């Protein structure tokens, strides 16, 4: 069957079959909820079906679909963040519990030696499984700020603007997220 004789539904169904796993994986890293991730991917394909006539087959399908999904994820983030603002950002947990009153590492939080080669790129699935699990333990706002920074390379000032938080709030969120993530990786992966 050539592309001309296929209906739009058939074309999008084929796209779904070949890209659903990648997009689902992309979404779940960022939203950490299986059902929301499924919904976001579904919405992506509904939007794809609506716009398939405008899709230039010259551009890469996966790039096009990822761009749609990205927008859906940002919309989802904004909805979440609005809930947070209702509850107030004052409850933000600071980094205090990792350090003593002089700012020294608490005994239990001192970074330990990792017996790995720091310059090596990790290709084990196990590592990514654990990293994913550690990301899951971050709270919603931490994960949103963290994924925007580390996965999507958005500039700090733009993240603050997008999430409507102050720069000092932002750095507390990121700092705590990283302390938590590092420790989780140490316990679950390196020294397990």
């Amino acid at each position, binding site marked *: 069957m050539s592309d001309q004789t296929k209906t739009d539904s058939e074309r999008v169904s084929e796209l779904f079959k070949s890209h659903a796993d990648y997009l*689902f*994986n992309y979404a*779940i890293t960022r939203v950490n909820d299986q059902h929301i991730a499924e919904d976001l*991917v579904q919405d992506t394909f*509904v939007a794809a079906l609506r716009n398939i006539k405008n899709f230039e087959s010259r551009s890469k399908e996966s790039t096009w679909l990822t761009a749609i999904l990205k927008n859906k994820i940002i919309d989802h983030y904004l909805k979440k963040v609005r809930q947070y603002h209702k509850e107030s950002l004052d409850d933000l947990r600071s980094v205090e519990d990792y350090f003593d009153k002089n700012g020294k590492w608490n005994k239990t939080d001192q970074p330990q030696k990792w017996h790995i080669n720091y310059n090596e790129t990790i290709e084990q699935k196990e590592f990514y499984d654990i990293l994913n699990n550690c990301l899951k333990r971050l709270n919603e706002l931490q994960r949103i700020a963290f994924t925007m*920074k580390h996965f999507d390379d958005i500039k*700090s000032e733009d993240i603050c603007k997008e999430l409507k938080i102050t720069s000092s709030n932002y750095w507390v969120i990121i*700092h705590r997220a990283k302390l938590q993530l*590092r420790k989780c990786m140490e316990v679950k992966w390196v020294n397990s």
Partner: protein
Amino acid sequence: MGLMLSCKDASELIMKRDAEELKFYDRIRLMMHLSMCKFCALFEKQNDFINSNIKALDDTVVKEFPGDSKERILEELNNT
């Protein structure tokens, strides 16, 4: 913050350095602290390691789309 940084401040500067260039004064203070504190030196290394490996998470399919939902969505797409 005086010339001597606490571990808390040092780890925060390491974080900020990922995003922006630090002021000269902060760079010096951080360098001094890192040369004296083995825990922060480890933190720096491990932070860099996480940063440089984290991106590949997008290209590693850890979780596949659940099969039963796949069927359901395919059906919906076909009936649209």
